[in-house]
């Protein structure tokens, strides 16, 4: 692949960004941002609960806008951009969630699992593929396994019928060389495309995305103003600008994506994501960025240092969906502190 190949941008503002506002994006938000992204020429616009289709729940947070309404509105407002959904088997079932979503006109299905659990994606990938939509496999928290094991899991996604594999730096833990090594390995051993999804805990989301592109990834994720879980994602408009400077083609109009980002800041965000000190710690500890809010809240409640919680969660290799462990860890830290044994 040439140094300046075409990069497909998948915009996760209305999905990963939902994490940042407790999944409270409204129908109006979705309509307005979809129009702006579509106008800018974004290839794929992902919409939904932060954890994807069917994930609205007490434990993970209830969506303000139910899946079917969010998708209907997005579909109505996306003329050129393709509509994407994030699907984690277990949260999303085929009959209850995926089938209706496809009937509402979803174009791209991204079936995701924890990096070592690709097996759970088989049915969802096969089903989506049989319905003729574009299917990507996503391996979340990919820093938790070695590159060789990541390749093994990616091969499973390929064998199930995925047309590409996105590996996700869900904790914002990677350095550029980590990304280069993984993209090169996947590129050389898979017959399908490779994509990358970054988080910005260590301030490296753009640098890591560039490392992915230079190594052959053809799909990059980004969010307007970095609107996403924890320290945020790759800042979309910056990503587009840097890619343009480096000579990659994205099909996105720079001025219009800058406008879309301005709009996102104005209407979607209570606060623009920034790298807070706990985000740095979560990146160092390799813990999912989406834990930032619950960890901060629970740390306050138990009067313990949130940084200690993150490092303990990292030691325990906790992943998304195990939010209840935060409470357990905070309690233990508080008890230890009470006994004078921090």
């Amino acid at each position, binding site marked *: *692949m040439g140094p300046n*190949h*075409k990069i497909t941008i998948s915009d996760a503002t209305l999905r990963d960004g939902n994490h940042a506002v407790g999944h409270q994006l409204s129908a109006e938000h979705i309509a307005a941002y979809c129009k702006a992204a579509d106008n800018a020429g974004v290839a794929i616009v992902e919409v939904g609960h932060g954890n994807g289709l069917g994930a609205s729940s007490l434990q993970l947070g209830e969506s303000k806008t139910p899946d079917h309404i969010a998708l209907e509105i997005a579909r109505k407002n996306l003329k050129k951009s393709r509509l994407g959904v994030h699907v984690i088997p277990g949260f999303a079932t085929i009959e209850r969630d995926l089938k209706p979503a496809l009937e509402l006109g979803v174009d791209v299905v991204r079936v995701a699992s924890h990096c070592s659990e*690709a*097996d759970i994606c*088989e049915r969802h990938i*096969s089903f989506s*593929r*049989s*319905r*003729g939509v*574009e299917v*990507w496999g996503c391996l979340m928290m990919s820093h938790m396994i070695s590159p060789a094991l990541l*390749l*093994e899991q990616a*091969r*499973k996604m390929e*064998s*199930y*019928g995925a*047309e*590409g594999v996105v590996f996700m730096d869900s904790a914002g833990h990677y350095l550029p060389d980590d990304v280069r090594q993984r993209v090169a390995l996947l*590129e050389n051993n898979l*017959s*399908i*495309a490779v994509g990358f999804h970054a988080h910005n805990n260590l301030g490296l989301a753009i640098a890591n995305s560039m490392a992915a592109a230079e190594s052959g990834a*053809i799909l990059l994720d980004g969010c307007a103003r970095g609107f996403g879980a924890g320290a945020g994602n790759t800042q979309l408009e910056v990503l587009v600008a840097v890619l343009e400077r480096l000579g990659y083609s994205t099909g996105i109009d720079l001025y219009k994506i800058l406008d879309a980002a301005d709009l996102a800041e104005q209407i979607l965000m209570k606060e623009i994501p920034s790298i807070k000190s706990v985000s740095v710690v979560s990146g160092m500890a390799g813990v999912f960025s989406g834990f930032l809010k619950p960890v901060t809240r629970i740390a306050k409640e138990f009067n313990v240092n949130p940084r200690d919680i993150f490092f303990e969660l990292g030691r325990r290799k906790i992943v998304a969906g195990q939010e209840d462990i935060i409470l357990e860890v905070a309690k233990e830290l508080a008890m230890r502190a009470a006994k004078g044994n921090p």
Partner: protein
Amino acid sequence: MKPQCQERTRHDCLRILKGRDKALEPLRQSELVVVGGTGFVGTWIAEMVAALNEDFRFGIKLSLMSRSTDQFSNRLPHLAGRKDFNLIKSDVRQLGQFPMNADWVIHAAANPDVRTHASNPVDTASVIVDGTMSVMRTAERLSHLKKILYLSSGLVCGPQPASTKGLDESAHGAPAPNASFMYPNAKRFAETICSAARMQSRIPVLVARPFSFVGPYQSLDTPWAQTTFLSDALQDHPIRVLGDGQVVRSYLYGSDAAYWFLRILTAGQSGDVVNVGSPVGVTLQALAEEVAKNFDPSPEIMFNTSPKSAGPSAQLLPDTTHAQNDYGLAVFTPFDEAIKLTAQWHQMMRNNHARV
């Protein structure tokens, strides 16, 4: 199954057998067992035997052994209900015994679904390796056994070197020794088991190495290029090609393959290894275009996910010189005809937009 589909598959068999039935004379009045007999290959062999018995009075007794005999009976009552056919429900790893008077055995038991290989590599290996061990041990008790044909895989020699036009039977490569390549590694080891059984127990066994096939009875649910393209077209979806479409494969039609297997079984020498497939390579783009031609309206062809170009190992073709020169075999159904017949059969099964 719809009567017109049955007629079509019978016609496919008779077309191949015309003028070539004499080459299968050793099968006359004999008893044939196909282990793993209800899959794509087993079903086509059953169709071929039915044609030999009805139109050429061969009088073959056929036993199909499989875990899936119930599904086979439901799906294909025209074969399952025949008096000259016997369905035996059994797992290849625990065969117990073959029909006592079996003359010929074809061992085709393995799950070819790449999704199963990825999710259950240990079970994949068990079916292939333990299954082959079981076939060989069970065969030791057959007093009339003339030959066993083991259906291995064209993948056992690993990727095709860029310098060759096709893999011949003596290729020295091997698949990488890890779980992602469990299927070809297990098949490779199963070939070794066959060789050991021949050496140690004098079991007369030879090996066929199948490459890619196409035709009726191939499940469109499997994520192979030919099945995915057909499935896309049948559902009025665009045909989606991965990469730049320049990966090269070849396709042998189902009835051709069945004839090849029976011919190799009856004419082959114990210990021989023979590639089974078409040596005529086609790119995936050409495959997609050929599939599209057979639908009205023709589906759009999309190359929309990966611009990756086909690498040096993107070609996998058999060298079939041995099969041609020593067994008189050839591709009887050309590629375009094979795709047309397959598309029409599925269209007849579904009763939709046939360009027949």
